[in-house]
């Protein structure tokens, strides 16, 4: 998928040209002299530009990396994000999710701070945010992934001085296998149990569409049934030029069994009576966590599929090197191990211990 068309913005207010400088009125003392960004209870904050990145509570100005619910919340005064993230927020929260919005294109000046958005490879529309002022370059990775993903834009490393990285899979035990190998395991299971529908748990934004696209790449061109909660986001991906093939709603008359081979649903659906419509299903779950057997067992999964839209350990560490950063901050996930790795490689690093971000969204 190359050069996806971008949608025009609905209005352009809120960021460019705003010159009001409000110094940090809340939060802890700055940890270094005049920091460009600092952790606060609401999330990462830029005092000079007076904006937050992925705030977990309503703020006047928010820069949003991607549309997952723990990063993109409704109720901010103004939101700056990629066109696709804005679209996705509108789909999830309604068109009035924020008072003002602006599409992130090119470089944008906010109170003398320059910001730019760069693809993060996590989900459709996801971005890293580069923040520059006074000769210092900081990049906030947001959630990101470097493995090829047919359902979103590819990650690009952005050179910087301080790299603020996620660490969801920040342990050296996490090395995601090639997604094609996991799809092959699913295919083998479909062959071994031709009479059992395979229900695949995948988050509604990103993972679900990626699973469908991966199945299509592997030659599954028959119908794939999807849970109702996925419909709008799948429609949006299709509208954005991502071919998902023959999708059918996994709905049925009450009490009737649904005859389906492959069904994609948000994992929460497996706790609902929705599952009763399938006869003797194989429950699968697509997540990086499925690499750990105890996690798969806790979920009651019969077919764990290790498919993640986060960077694994080799990619987390490789990316730190690629950015050339002289300092690393770790936002959320398994901070300790990544900080330890940086220490072993003589890169100053510290955990930010930001709260409010989940291991997996939704």
């Amino acid at each position, binding site marked *: 998928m190359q050069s996806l068309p971008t949608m025009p913005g609905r209005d352009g207010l809120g960021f460019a040209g705003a010159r009001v400088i409000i110094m940090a009125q809340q939060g802890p003392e700055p940890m270094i002299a005049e920091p460009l960004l600092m952790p606060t209870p609401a999330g990462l904050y830029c005092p000079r530009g007076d904006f937050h990145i992925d705030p977990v509570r309503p703020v006047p100005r928010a820069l949003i990396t991607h549309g997952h619910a723990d990063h993109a919340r409704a109720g901010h005064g103004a939101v700056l994000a990629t066109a696709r993230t804005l679209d996705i927020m509108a789909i999830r929260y309604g068109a009035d999710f924020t008072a003002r919005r602006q599409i992130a294109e090119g470089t944008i000046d906010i109170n003398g701070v320059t910001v730019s958005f760069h693809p993060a490879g996590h989900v459709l529309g996801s971005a890293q945010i580069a923040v520059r002022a006074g000769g210092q370059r900081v990049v906030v990775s947001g959630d990101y992934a470097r493995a090829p993903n047919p359902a979103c834009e590819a990650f690009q490393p952005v050179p910087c001085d301080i790299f603020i990285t996620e660490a969801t899979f920040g342990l050296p035990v996490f090395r995601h*296998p090639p997604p094609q190998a996991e799809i092959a395991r699913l295919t083998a299971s479909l062959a071994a149990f031709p009479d059992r529908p395979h229900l695949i748990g995948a988050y509604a934004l990103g993972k679900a569409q990626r699973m469908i696209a991966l199945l299509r790449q592997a030659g599954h061109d028959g119908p794939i049934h999807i849970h109702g909660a996925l419909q709008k986001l799948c429609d949006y991906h299709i509208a954005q030029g991502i071919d998902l093939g023959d999708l059918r709603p996994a709905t049925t008359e009450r009490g009737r069994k649904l005859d389906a081979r492959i069904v994609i649903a948000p994992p929460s659906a497996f706790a609902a*009576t929705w599952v009763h419509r*399938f006869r003797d*299903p194989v429950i699968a779950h697509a997540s990086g966590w499925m*690499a750990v057997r105890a996690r798969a067992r806790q979920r*009651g999964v019969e077919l764990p599929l290790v498919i993640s839209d986060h960077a694994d350990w080799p990619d987390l560490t490789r990316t730190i090197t690629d950015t050339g950063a002289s300092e690393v901050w770790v936002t959320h996930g398994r901070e300790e191990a990544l900080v*330890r790795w940086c220490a072993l490689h003589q890169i100053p690093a510290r955990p930010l211990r930001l709260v409010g971000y989940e291991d997996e969204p939704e």
Partner: protein
Amino acid sequence: MTPFATLLERLAFTPARNAKLRLIGDYLAHTPDPDRGWALAALTGGLKLRTVTPSLLRALAEDRVDADLFALSYDSVGDLAETIALIWPAPDQGADISLTQVVTTLQTTKKPDLPALIAGWLDTLGPSERYALLKLATRGLRVGVSARLTHVALAQHAGAGGPPADRIGEVWHGLAPPYPGLFDWLAGGPEPQTQARAPFRPVMLAHPADAEALAPLNPADFAAEWKWDGVRVQAVAEGGGRHLYTRRGEDISAAFPDMVAALDFEGVIDGELLVRQGDATAPFGELQKRLNRKTVTKAMLASHPAHLRAYDLLHWQGRDLRPLPLTERRAALETAVAQIANPRIDLSPPVPFTDWAALDAIRANPPDAVIEGVMIKRHDSPYLPGRPKGPWFKWKRDPMVVDAVMLYAQRGHGKRSGYYSDFTFGVWDGAALVPVGKAYFGFTDAELRALDRFVRHNTTDRFGPVRQVKPDLVLEVAFEGLNASPRHKSGLAMRFPRIRRIRWDKPAAEADRIDTLRAMLPADPLTSARGG
């Protein structure tokens, strides 16, 4: 290793028996010899390999991975072999090594050479194969595959014209991995001549019965004896070989060396394995402490000596007695036990009775707490494999019953996917409810749907696939016995609990108290003879 590793991964997450059979069947159909034979041996615990210790693995990991990073990872993963399999710095798509090569090399490698050998393999294999290798080498494979399940899978693999599972089970113990003769046989070749001595014979089982089922039968045609609450075993001593098998054909000799030492005869005895404490027969819970162990301590041998109570005689001094009527086998058994003259082996005494009502009264008040009912056998019955209809019956003591409150519910698998079908229940201990057991059957499909609805409407908390529910629903739980168990919070462990009735009508406050259950413990024979 890849096909074997893949099989292990699937089996580990597949609880349903039929699905397990399908997975094993597919593996047998697509895997060449001798790999599939070694795999069967590994799954059923029949592989004798030099054991790689956890400390050896730790040392290997320390050589390759920063100690802090390893500790953080181990903490997150929770299993040593799995942590090493995942963290080992090697190409994720390495070359494969055959299971046969792994097994035969492990069998011949000397201890000082093991670390280099294992490290070399870890460098070559992918993560799933590394996990299979480490579990194999540390003898940590636990995938819930019984010997019996394997025999059924082999019979299905052989197809309609091949040997049945029972026959495979009989031959199985005489074969050594990787079982070339077995696979020839399944493919239409001759039945393998067992090399090892003292093979397992398929066991004869009884149908459950009650007063109504027995009424049309003539009591004079039948003998009765106690049904002891231990483990039904087959003790085989032939041609110098000695084995103790469960009724499923699992070889449990290693856990009971004291019993095996007492098998000083030439024949096959069907009986009940028990633990003796002084003159008394210990409750099942005491025997359980000796089950599922690969070795047994001296202290355990002294405090929990094994005992065989003989029911039947299948072979004696080279002669197959199975076609003879029960009366003749019983006479031979009495002579045999007298000849063996070992206090560890005694006769299950006959229970004389005149009519079914009299037997019912005897059954309801057995002389020993470790009796769970009576066995009723036709005088003229030959010893037949399986569960033939007519010759043998078991008439169990009424189950113990308790009214408990549902506390947690867990979603089921396969056909029960999406239904809350596994229920943890508790009884009152003061003002609190303490969990005493878990049950997942005993109810109809309609009742399952009603229970599922109750759980969904009364959820107070969620932990993955488990829900905590408002403690409002009383379940009448029937169970076969109760043991003291320090591993359970309540100090009690139920045997075979099932939900007999859903008491929609009964307030939770009127559910039973923990004292009621404690009074059912077998330590006190006055209260343990009858429950509920």
